[in-house]
């Protein structure tokens, strides 16, 4: 195979304020290859691809696409050069239809006599959707009717229908279910088979090894190494490059004991949410890690919200027997020691455009005030204490959360709830989009917390982490509990998937 360079960066750098996110990175992606971009949180992966796809401007350095100097002005401009991206977060416009989203920015393709011919647009969208077998998605519907996963699929079509030369897939798989991933892999290979190249950013190293032809490792914004994937390369090799030193083997819990002997701290009775959950009866014990698994649409994410009093249209009760409290609102939940880390971190978990201090202190106002007044000094001490405990990588506590990487954002969320001294932590997809090191520290924290007698509900689409961490695992399917498994030696993925589908 002759190797022809598709895109090359030369001393590419990006600075945000005083933070150097990317430092003089030079690397190249060949035509027709799948190129993995890996590194810890904040290593600059997304920043680089955001420059390549025109989302961020370049601070210094150059890019060359097929040998020509390449300076995308924005995302649409990058599209015109044949470069597109699928981002980690939701990127569809709610008020537009599926077809309008797919052809957003390229509506001129369908203009007849000065107006957009929606019929032609829908027809074309139908064709593209059919190519990938998304027959359940109707081009004329508003995207708002579709789930997160379906919208991701719509984005896939949007990013690839014009046969891009380069497709960037930024940390998309973690948000997807098994089926969704398979679709995505199929699509990535489809782009490759047509001679295009794909840059994949992922924290799932196994996935990277299986999918990619070559890999580039970044650390702290610097280029560490680029190499082709061979059979000899293992996950541990990748981790070593990412971290810069040997990792200890410890990752998940090492014991196989199922600890559910503690008294019941939370009890759900006949919980129903129309069309989402039916007849949920569930108990959480003191010191337990209760796993909740299922497909994205199984209702497991809503179940987490129910436990936090965040859904309004439910029937049945969620109570804390020891405290004799029934949870009916977020306020009572927080006041009675329940914490919630949302899957939707940037909207529900954090105020992105506010400081670390603002975020960490908000839920603990009652603790921080004396006689109705809040002392800024006490707030600073409080934030410093918990941000340090969580090891948040930051300039200072006044830094805006929007400037932090995914893992550090999650640490801020956890710092907020640790500061509240919550007894029950409902963690929805706590490691979503988070790298190995931070993941390990979150797993470690979970174990430490249960040792202190706190209870954790871990909702996750990652079966391996559920097996690795939970005392007990409840599987949901179509809003109902279909299986309950205890922690034991040799609990297999297949057994759990069996209950999921």
């Amino acid at each position, binding site marked *: 195979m002759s190797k022809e360079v598709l895109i090359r960066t030369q001393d590419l750098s990006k600075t945000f304020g005083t933070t150097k996110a990317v430092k003089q990175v030079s690397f190249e992606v060949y035509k027709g290859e799948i190129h993995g971009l890996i590194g810890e949180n904040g290593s600059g992966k997304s920043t680089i691809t955001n420059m390549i796809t025109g989302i961020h401007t370049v601070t210094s350095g150059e890019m060359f696409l097929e040998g020509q100097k390449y300076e995308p002005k924005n995302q649409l401009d990058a599209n015109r050069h044949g470069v597109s991206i699928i981002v980690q977060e939701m990127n569809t416009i709610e008020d537009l239809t599926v077809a309008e989203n797919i052809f957003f920015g390229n509506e001129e393709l369908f203009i007849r006599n000065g107006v957009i011919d929606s019929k032609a647009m829908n027809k074309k969208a139908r064709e593209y959707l059919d190519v990938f077998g998304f027959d359940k998605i109707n081009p004329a519907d508003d995207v708002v009717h579709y789930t997160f996963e379906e919208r991701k699929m719509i984005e896939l079509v949007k990013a690839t229908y014009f046969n891009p030369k380069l497709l960037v897939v930024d940390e998309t798989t973690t948000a997807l279910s098994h089926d969704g991933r398979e679709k995505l892999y199929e699509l990535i290979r489809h782009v490759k088979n047509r001679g295009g190249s794909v840059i994949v950013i992922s924290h799932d190293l196994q996935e990277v090894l299986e999918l990619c032809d070559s890999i580039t490792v970044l650390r702290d914004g610097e280029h560490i190494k680029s190499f082709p994937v061979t059979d000899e390369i293992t996950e541990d090799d990748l981790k070593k490059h990412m971290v810069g030193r040997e990792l200890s083997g410890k990752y998940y819990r090492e014991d196989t004991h199922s600890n559910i002997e503690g008294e019941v701290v939370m009890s759900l009775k006949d919980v129903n949410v129309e069309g989402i959950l039916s007849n949920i009866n569930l108990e959480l014990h003191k010191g337990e890690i209760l796993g909740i698994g299922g497909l994205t649409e199984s209702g497991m994410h809503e179940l987490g919200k129910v436990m936090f009093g965040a859904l309004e249209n439910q029937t049945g009760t969620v109570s804390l027997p020891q405290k004799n409290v029934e949870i009916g609102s977020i306020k009572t939940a927080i006041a009675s020691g329940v914490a919630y880390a949302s899957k939707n971190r940037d*909207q529900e978990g954090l105020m992105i455009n506010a400081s670390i201090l603002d975020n960490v202190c908000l839920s603990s106002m009652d603790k921080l005030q004396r006689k109705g007044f809040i002392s800024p000094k006490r707030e600073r001490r409080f934030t410093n204490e918990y941000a340090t405990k969580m090891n948040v990588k930051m300039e200072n506590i006044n830094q805006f959360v929007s400037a932090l990487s995914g893992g550090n954002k999650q640490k801020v969320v956890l710092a907020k709830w640790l500061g509240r001294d919550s007894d029950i932590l409902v963690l929805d997809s706590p490691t979503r989009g988070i790298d190995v090191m931070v993941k390990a520290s979150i797993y470690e924290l979970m174990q430490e917390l249960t040792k202190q007698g706190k209870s954790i509900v871990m909702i996750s689409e990652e079966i391996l982490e559920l097996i690795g961490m939970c005392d007990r695992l409840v599987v949901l399917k179509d809003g109902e509990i279909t299986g309950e498994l205890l922690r034991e030696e040799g609990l297999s993925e297949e057994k759990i998937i069996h209950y999921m589908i």
Partner: protein
Amino acid sequence: MNKKMLQSAVPYLGLVIVIVLFTILTQGKSMDGSNWKLIIEQALTLLICSAGVMFVMTMGSLDFSQGSIVGLACYAAAVVSSFSIPLAIVAAVGVGAGIGLLNGVMHAKFKIQSFIVTMCTMFIFRGLVVFFTSNFPAETPYAIYDYDNLVGKFIVVVAIVAAGFIVFRFTKLGRQVRAIGSGEIAAAYSGVNVDRTKILAFVIAGALAGIAAFFALVRTGSATAQTGNLMETNVMIALVLGGLSVSGGARSNYMAVIIGAMMLTCLTNGLVLIGADPITQQLIKGIIFLLCIIITTDRKSGLISK
């Protein structure tokens, strides 16, 4: 860090520039003792209203009904003042708080955008003011002018602004309005009672507009169809001049109330002194307002004001 400091210094610099500019243009007349007295007199009602609207705008909401609140509360106070002047104060604050409550409930509970709600209440209550003042003119006792004491009024305003500052900076309410402006959903998920906080902020803004209405009454001795006219725009211009972003949020600084109200008053006063006619004044204010919004809007975060 330096860039941030520079950005927060812009409103202060603006105030200095306005003062220096008009000192030069009026050959020192604007620095006259009697003119300063006038400026302070004119700034008082603006300061009171801004102190309340600050809470509303920090949440990313707007209050277009301020002028109409001042108008109706002033009329109510005028009617009641013929029985008892202290009761007139209660009436003014009561009417203001009542309209604020209506605004807040419509916005928070019925989920209507604040600018739509307050635009409606602006028209409704301005209509009522025009109707009442032309059909049932209120007579105020002469004793009302006893309350028109600059020192007394000044002390009241300082107390209000200081109290606002303390609530904004050092209490839960202040933190919560900022949290709502930074991210309403995240605030709710952190235990902030969003609806209650929103309603409370509008009630505060309304009640303070009621006090401003009483000030207007003691100054002129009467309530007319025009009382409080354009107060809402002046308040918004003042706060934005003071460095407040129209989308509110975490960067909101209470000093915007003082700096903004002083800057706008000095600007208006200066324009009058150099003989600009009202139309030119409005034109200039409009341009400055637009420029300020362009400067203060946080384009990076991609937030659009509500």
